[in-house]
């Protein structure tokens, strides 16, 4: 594992402490912020982030700390009632850099702590532009949030504010407003320690301290947008998202990125069936709190105007049910001679889709399209198929994947293969060109967008993207992870698994896959690696299966 992905720590020794009188047990070494979280005591913080090195600079997390007193004999000093006497430290301590120790007494709601929080908030705000109405972070800004909770209601600042550069172009995807920056250094530490691309730093001193790229450097790497997530304020913005939509209008849907076999956990942010952005969702078994820029920005196809919203029969739009009715008998007849039917499934399909596809393809020649790019030593997997593992488990892909595509092409050329069923792939670009496709007596394509292959198809059934359906993917490490529908185009398109269920029914298979849960249960009962699983068990975080 690369060293920028932390390994899960083994169960640690626990220590006992109290926070605001509440008993808390925390693993040895946990800090006060983490301990507080365990019992619902929130310690405000800006610079601290659990996945970044401690910097201790914002001073927002100041708390009172005490511990059991020890006498000259090194024995605990006791109160008359036998409880240990507690000595409180004379100064406040920063919660982020103070590990909880046995018997520690932590106070986060005393007048001294509240006064300190109030003072630190004031220091943050005096030079801040305070123009939230025109700031893109409004609604998800920690400065706004804390200022309501811990700050003053009015400013008493009588001086001129410090002015700094606005609209600084840090790189291809990130913009900086230095006046909004609260100098927490999260972005610097992320780029230096996690992305291993030390490109950001502070220049100038004191209140004139300014975030900048080092001379000759740009914030350009494939992980640059994680700095936008980390930024507690509106200083760093994603050029793709900035000023397009107020966040409070957006609906959040759990999902995963399907741009490579890592399957980073994500949230899809949408409004009225339009996706506006994707952000990483924490999962220590997969992507911690991060995702790559390429995956994050790979959502434009979801709302593309060219999307297929109707079935196509010989190139003509038709209602889904009618198209299915026409296709049914033809497909059934074709499948009677399995040797004349070939199947190209997809490593981008869900496990459930692949399962149904495998039933449909039984007895015929079947393969998937391999898809690789440059992996890195961090998150990006060299396999761009999000479910190559699934395609292998269900036998939809040949071994190795793609090795049978030429067999299929040759079969069509020789006239042996007369029917081709394609899921979500443009086989035209994979050695089965228009001339070959034209030779087929039946070409059925399930896809969500038009391609050269759909153009040649006798039947096209409109499927959907990962952002519109339920189902699961198996990532490169064998982790099964769920997606949920975030948007719907409202046309005749439907979840691909429903299309395959319908095709199975129309071709005479028993109709036993009522809904996605039933389908999953059937799959779990029949495909060994999924034994004992259910969608519920997989939940938001995924479940590890054995893929070997």
């Amino acid at each position: 594992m690369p060293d920028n992905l932390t390994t899960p720590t083994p169960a640690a020794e626990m220590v006992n402490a109290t926070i605001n009188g509440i008993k808390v047990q925390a693993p040895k070494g946990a800090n006060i912020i983490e301990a507080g979280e365990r019992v619902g005591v929130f310690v405000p913080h800006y610079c601290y982030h659990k996945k970044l090195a401690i910097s201790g600079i914002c001073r927002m997390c100041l708390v009172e700390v005490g511990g059991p007193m020890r006498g000259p004999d090194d024995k605990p000093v006791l109160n008359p009632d036998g409880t240990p006497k507690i000595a409180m430290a004379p100064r406040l301590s920063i919660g982020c850099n103070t590990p909880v120790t046995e018997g520690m007494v932590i106070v986060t709601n005393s007048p001294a702590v509240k006064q300190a929080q109030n003072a630190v908030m004031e220091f943050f705000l005096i030079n801040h532009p305070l123009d939230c109405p025109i700031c893109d972070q409004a609604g998800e800004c920690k400065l706004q949030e804390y200022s309501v909770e811990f700050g003053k209601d009015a400013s008493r600042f009588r001086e001129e504010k410090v002015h700094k550069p606005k609209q600084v172009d840090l790189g291809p995807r990130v913009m900086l407003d230095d006046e909004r920056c609260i100098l927490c250094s999260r972005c610097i530490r992320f780029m230096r320690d996690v992305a291993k691309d030390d490109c950001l730093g502070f220049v100038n001193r004191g209140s004139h301290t300014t975030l900048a790229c080092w001379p000759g450097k740009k914030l350009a790497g494939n992980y640059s947008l994680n700095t936008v997530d980390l930024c507690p304020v509106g200083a760093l913005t994603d050029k793709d998202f900035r000023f397009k939509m107020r966040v409070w209008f957006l609906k959040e849907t759990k999902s995963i990125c399907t741009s490579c076999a890592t399957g980073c956990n994500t949230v899809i942010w949408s409004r009225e069936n339009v996706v506006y952005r994707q952000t990483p969702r924490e999962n220590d078994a997969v992507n911690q709190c991060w995702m790559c820029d390429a995956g994050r920005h790979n959502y434009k196809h979801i709302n593309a105007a060219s999307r297929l919203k109707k079935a196509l029969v010989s190139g003509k739009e038709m209602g889904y049910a009618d198209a299915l009715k026409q296709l049914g008998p033809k497909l059934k007849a074709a499948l009677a001679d399995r040797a004349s039917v070939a199947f190209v499934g997809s490593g981008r399909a869900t496990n459930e889709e692949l399962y149904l596809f495998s039933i449909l393809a039984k007895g015929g020649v079947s393969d998937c399209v391999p898809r690789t790019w440059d992996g890195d030593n961090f998150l990006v997997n060299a396999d761009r198929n999000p479910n190559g593992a699934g395609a292998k488990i269900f036998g939809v892909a040949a071994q190795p994947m793609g090795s049978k595509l030429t067999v299929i092409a040759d079969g069509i050329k020789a006239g042996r293969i007369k029917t081709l069923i394609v899921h979500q792939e443009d086989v035209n670009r994979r050695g089965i060109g228009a001339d070959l496709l034209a030779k087929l007596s039946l070409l059925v394509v399930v896809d969500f967008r038009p391609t050269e292959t759909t153009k040649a198809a006798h039947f096209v059934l409109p499927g959907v993207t990962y952002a519109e359906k339920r189902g699961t993917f198996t990532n490169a490490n064998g982790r099964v992870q769920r997606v949920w529908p975030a948007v719907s185009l409202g046309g005749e398109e439907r979840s691909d698994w429903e299309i395959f269920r319908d095709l199975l029914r129309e071709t005479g298979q028993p109709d036993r896959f009522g809904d996605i849960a039933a389908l999953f249960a059937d799959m779990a009962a029949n495909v060994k690696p999924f034994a004992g699983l259910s969608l519920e068990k997989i939940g938001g975080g995924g479940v590890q299966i054995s893929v070997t």
Partner: protein
Amino acid sequence: MAAVERKILTARMTQPGYSVRIEDYLAAGGYAALKKAMAMKPEAIRSEVTRSGLRGRGGAGFGTGLKWSLVDRKSGKPIYLICNADEAEPGTFKDRQIIHRDPHALIEGIVCASYANDVRTAYVYCRGEFAQGYKILLAAIEEARAKNFVGKNIFGSAYSLEIYVHRGAGAYICGEETGLIESLEGKRGYPRFKPPYFPAALGLWMCPTIVNNVETLANIPVIIQMGGAEFAHIGTPGNTGTRMVGVSGHVNKPGCYEVELGKITHGELINGLCGGVPGGRKVKAIIPGGSSAKSIRGDERFKGKKRDGTAYDWGWQDVPVDFDSLAMIGTMAGSGGVIVLDETADIPKAIANIAEFYAHESCGQCTPCREGSLWMAKALHRMTHGHGQKGDTDYLKSIADNIPGRTICPFGEACAWPVQSFVEKFRDDFVKLEK
């Protein structure tokens, strides 16, 4: 009794004709302490330093023997010694006397301290503005190397030491020991948070490190020569040795004076050694330990009981020049820079100047100091430029009150204390500016 200096560290440099050349130092008995030290066991030297009671001359007055005893000697990592020659506290100009006028005294101190602590590499972090001092140090080290006092197999022994002089880039915060260490490592001079980055364990390159002030190190050969017990007889118990005190401001003879700690009062220092205030005017304020120290008002009385139980009732004239007496009256001996302001001084303007310095020098890492230091400076600038507003005095004081105790390094206190004390002690001068 007329106040007199006690010249130990300044004995040679104040001799007519004395130069920085090694011959002059040798002729005055220089490097004999090193020779003596090299015949001793390192731990024996450390005990002598502990016995001497020497306290650090950099600002905090921390016991040097105690500091050395805290060094992690079991880490298996090299131990470094850093001589803090960043002297940048306003009003402080003692270390530069040693560097400019008797550099070999410092070098001998560094070699002795290094030998005593098993240090093989020592650094001098030289204030960037000391362009001349930097050259003098480099030349002196070469002279010492030529005589085999520095470098490989010193005095033919198995002990070798390399000394590097690093010139800072003009940041006051690089005088704070952990900011200094970061700077020496080639990074921005950002002080480290403690725990866990105590130099004694995790200092330069994360190795155990001793940071000592120039004047502190210059005392080491003296201690080796006379023995710790004898040294402890200079000055007063708990405040041993002499101190080089830089007096500036409204005095007839400003300058650097070496005095025996606790044996001379501020009255004797200012009215005696420094020839009093020009025109016989009254003292309005004294900043006794560099600009970070809380000020003393000219007409202030200090009453209380000393640790030994005897009562005291002092005006500024009666306060002995030493660590403990100044701490007792709520300020500090700090960096040994005494700034005298007479009755003609404009107190708000004086503190506006100091505040501007701190605003410029805050490293900017932690919020209260970064924002508070400039805020105070801006408020004071406005007030002293005819734009004072009702409530400004309390406003200013409350900004200062919100900084100390909440920052990474003591700069937070250093920038707040002078403002707090000036506003508390000269409130009327500030209220007068409110309109």
